[in-house]
């Protein structure tokens, strides 16, 4: 545990939320990506995160991204005969992405980032208060 544990833990939170934001941006960008039925559909990414252990010293070390999970490669079989990627029966694969879910997660990532940034600011104020003890005599 360093003297800036709170700031360091929030920093890992900020990094995780940023990774989440990146992944969600990619998912939303590819919401209409069409793939031929011969291959897998675009697979949405989901982060798997876990806490960072602080070797039993108590306050914990923050959070980290441990894995990147992919959604179902089958996607949604869609009848789209006008597409140049359509197979003989006129089907293509669209990604199985729920836009509402992605937008909800996006707001959670944004608010999570802001919350961690607020913790950094508050922690800074706290440490500064500690430094200023006894300054105004």
């Amino acid at each position, binding site marked *: 545990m360093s003297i800036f544990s709170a*700031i360091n833990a929030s920093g890992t939170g900020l*990094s995780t939320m940023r990774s989440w934001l990146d992944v969600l941006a990619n998912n939303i960008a590819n919401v209409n990506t069409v793939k031929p039925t011969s291959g897998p559909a675009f697979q949405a990414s989901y982060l798997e995160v876990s806490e960072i252990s602080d070797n039993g010293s108590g306050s914990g070390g923050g959070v980290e991204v441990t894995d990147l999970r992919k959604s179902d490669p089958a996607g949604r079989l869609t009848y789209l005969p006008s597409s140049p990627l359509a197979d003989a029966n006129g089907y293509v694969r669209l990604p199985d992405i729920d836009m509402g879910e992605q937008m909800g997660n996006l707001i959670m990532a944004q608010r999570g980032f802001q919350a961690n940034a607020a913790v950094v600011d508050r922690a800074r104020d706290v440490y500064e208060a500690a*430094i200023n003890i006894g300054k105004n005599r």
Partner: protein
Amino acid sequence: MTVPAIGAISAALPVLPALPNSGATAAASTGGGNFANLLSKGLNAVQSAQDKADSLAVKAATGDLTDIHDYTIAATQASLVTELATAIRTKGIDAFNQIMGMQA
């Protein structure tokens, strides 16, 4: 940017360790020179925090910075550590001045 200002403070700081080494630790060498060790250790921590912030500032300028908050957090820590060092220096000088002002 804030970093040059922090660097300027650090340029002034390393003068400090000479103070306890010259007289105080020689007189109180049985105590192990704890204050001097702590002081130089603290100043090294200040230096490393500022080095980290500096290298991240360079990364930001060259476009190699992947996480913006990495730099802002490092800069915050560097400024806090510098503030702490100057606070300790002020306290030390206050104590020294009080002792120098003692009269029988």
